[in-house]
């Protein structure tokens, strides 16, 4: 190998890398495109009738969760039905296994593509049902992309129409 070829090789590599687009982006000013299959934060569907959480407070997500992420506190509503006082989701403990989504009998819990989980305080990782609805509704665009890509099977089932 002639003397100096290593320097040339190094120079070539350097030039190649400097001309390439960077792998990192300046979050949060810039965002990367994500796959429509991305597994993000668990969201909650808004109930069309009451305008609140779709959750009926059955506690199956709490039972299915392997990591003690979810806590559902319920009480009796004025009309005698089960009422969800508090829905607490501790994102800091979540491993995104989505067992809760599988367990939900009314499809209240939904997968989203949201990954904006940054906070400056660990307490900020404990979110409630309203915040989960917000996350789900802000994910509309990604969901449309997803539905286009993976077909009608992924459409959200309507519990009330299913009977």
């Amino acid at each position, binding site marked *: 190998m002639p003397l100096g070829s290593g320097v040339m090789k190094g120079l070539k590599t350097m030039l190649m890398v400097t001309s390439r687009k960077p792998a990192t982006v300046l979050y949060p000013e810039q965002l990367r495109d994500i796959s429509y299959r991305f597994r993000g934060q668990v969201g909650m569907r808004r109930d069309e009738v009451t305008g609140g959480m779709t959750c*009926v407070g059955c*506690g199956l997500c709490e039972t299915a969760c392997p990591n003690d992420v979810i806590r559902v506190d319920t009480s*009796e509503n004025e009309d005698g039905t*089960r009422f969800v006082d508090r829905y607490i989701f501790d994102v800091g403990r979540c491993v995104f296994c989505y067992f809760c989504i599988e367990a939900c*009998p*009314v499809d209240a819990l939904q997968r989203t593509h949201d990954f904006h989980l940054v906070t400056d305080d660990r307490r900020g990782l404990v979110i409630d049902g309203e915040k989960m609805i917000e996350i789900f509704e802000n994910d509309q665009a990604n969901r449309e992309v997803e539905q286009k890509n993976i077909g009608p099977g992924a459409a959200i089932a309507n519990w009330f129409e299913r009977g």
Partner: protein
Amino acid sequence: MSTDTVTLTVDGIEVQVPRGATVLQACESIGVEIPTLCTDPRLKPYGACRMCVVEVQPGPPRPTASCTTPAGDGMTVVTNSQSIRDIRKHVIELQLQHHPLDCPYCDQAGTCELQDEVFDQEIFQSPYETVPKAHPEEILNEVILINHNRCILCGRCVRICDEQIGVRALDFVERAVGTFIAPAQHEFMDCERCGMCIETCPVGALLSRPFKHSARSWQTEKAASTCPHCAVGCSLLVESRHGEVVRTRSNGLEEPDRGILCAKGFFGHSFVNSEDRITQPMVRRGGVLWPVSWRAALDAITTGLRDVLDTHGPGAVGVVGSPNTTNEDNYTLQRFARAVLGTNNVYSQDSGLHATARTLRAVLGSDVGPHTQSELLASDLILVVGADIGQTHNVVGAHIKQAARDAGRKLVVATRLGSGLDDFATLSARVRPGAEAAFLNAIASGSDDGIDATAGVDTESLAEISQLVASAGSVAVVWDTGVWTLGKAAKIAQAAANLALARDGVKLFPLAERANSVGTFRVGMAPDLLPGARPLTDADARGQVGEAWGVDLNGEPGLPFNDFVEGPMQALYVMGEDVVGGAANPSGMRAALRDAPLVIAQDIFTNATTEIADVVLPGTTFAEKGGHYTNFEGRLGRLEQAIPPVGDSRPDWEIVARIAAAMGADFGWRSHEPISEELASLSMPPSIPGSGQAVAVNGAHLPADDGRLILATEQHLYTAGVAGRHAPSLTVMLPDAVAELNPADAERLQIAHGDRVHVASAGGEVNLKAMVARRVPSGVVSLPDRFLEAAPRQLDPRTPDGTAVRVSKA
């Protein structure tokens, strides 16, 4: 072949069962599981659901319900053929035609027997068109509601209310497809609120309103504990979630409760997580209680106690234990007092049970027990005297009703007021308040000389009762030793002992008022007793206990409580008791405690004593600690910790042990188990020969016939002391405090139902609503016990029950 057993073949396995057992029991005895919906081990076979069908040969050529078929010799039973499986599946599919699949909402999900069957039978969809019934949820009373849609009409609620509780509040209404469960007599279900219909319901039809929608059954942590509300000591399953007790249920079919509970057991747990709980140690500075740290509280106590001990000696210090706390708590307090403080001024406040136990021990040689409830229920004749057992000790009352009806026991009810037991009694008579002892004495002596004047029982009934008692093979005498026996407990016990001495086969069952009343006696919470209720004057016992504690015990008994309070008291440590509110003379007691330099009150709720205490310590309830209660039979009921102590509170024994450690005597206990062991090793029952002497007892004199009425203090089923007042689920069902009058008296005094009346005695007066009730005999006025607004003690501090009071329209 023996005639006591039958041999049959179940699925090819030979099985031997006692004659009279059902095919279902035979199958279960070898572990062959047969699905059932209408079967409850507490109930008689009924055969409503047809889930338990089996093929029986020889027999009719059709499936037979195994729960109602008696096992016969040589039977061949097939439990799992294809046709049987088809029938069972079909039964469930038909049930699902009407049963809504709202399991996510339903409180029963997880413990629902129908849900389990659907799962086992692998039914994913009903082949029939589902026609949900469209009944709304119906509220039956303050604590029970029914969801008709979910009801499968198995009849378990109807039967348990009839067979076990003897109330018959529920029944089937309408017919065929329109059948539903409803209160039998009125729209409102005015029953004993025992909750057993909820407990037995296999689906989510009958529901507890306090529990409704608060937790799912699989999320709760379960702890096997003992009910803290009365001396029956029913076993409870305490269910908690996130450190909060959400419900209590019956736990197992063992004695003493045999699988049933009363309103206090089923609904009376909500005081545990009450917001009124004392959760922090507090020290009084400048007349106000300030929350402080444990260290500061312990410092205040040790300095205070040392000051008093140095200047006045150990005789100026006293401790008061409580029948609301466990044996371990009381034992620790006693050891602290006798071994560390060196005083024998050890007290507990249940005067009724202590007086009864002392009298029985002096006469018969045994205090309470050694008879068990099963002996009570096996007696030929059960004699209930005084207060209504159905109100004071509801579960024992329910068992007595059942024994009277199903087991053919004779039941004689000689209570002061009419009671629910009357319907089941061979003979029921009324005893005048204040003459219960004279009545028992008359039966014991077999003469009715002058008894019509004192006992208030008409001579004919008395002769009949004496006759029944004389002719019965074995007799159980049952009486409550609650507040109504204040001042006369010893007399009643003596009269009962007279009866036991007069003839063979008499067993006495004094029912203690509170959960651990017997325990405080057996642990020795009295100035002259040691653990095991051995006398302090017994040098051997003293030596043994002193050796275990590593001290020389002072052999001189402490002063009686009132003498101590009026005399040398400089410091008092009260654990789990309201000595002021429960005193015979509250104002005098309050003044005495105010004068004392150091009063330490350790309790779960504020009361009249904590109001004047210098240091208040947060104790714990039954759900937050381990230990034992001793019930009315002397049986130990185990407590298991269900939740961590609320706030900064600590188990009572631990607080006392910490104070002892701070004063230089570390007992070395880190859990309650070593205390239980130490207590058991020291609890040798003393062998005290009873005097065996019958002493005739007279009744109180009948007051002059001047229009005054005799006061009967009655405890209501839903009252459960201070704890009960802080349990919202109990207070909602508590009726207003009323003065109950006989219709004839009401007419004579021109008092109508609902009027406000003055009830006045020499000691004071109360103003409350009148209720005209036939259950009150003429000449008697009944006031409830332990209502804040109308405590009979407030009326007449000395001997409230049986005294004459003037009733007039307000």
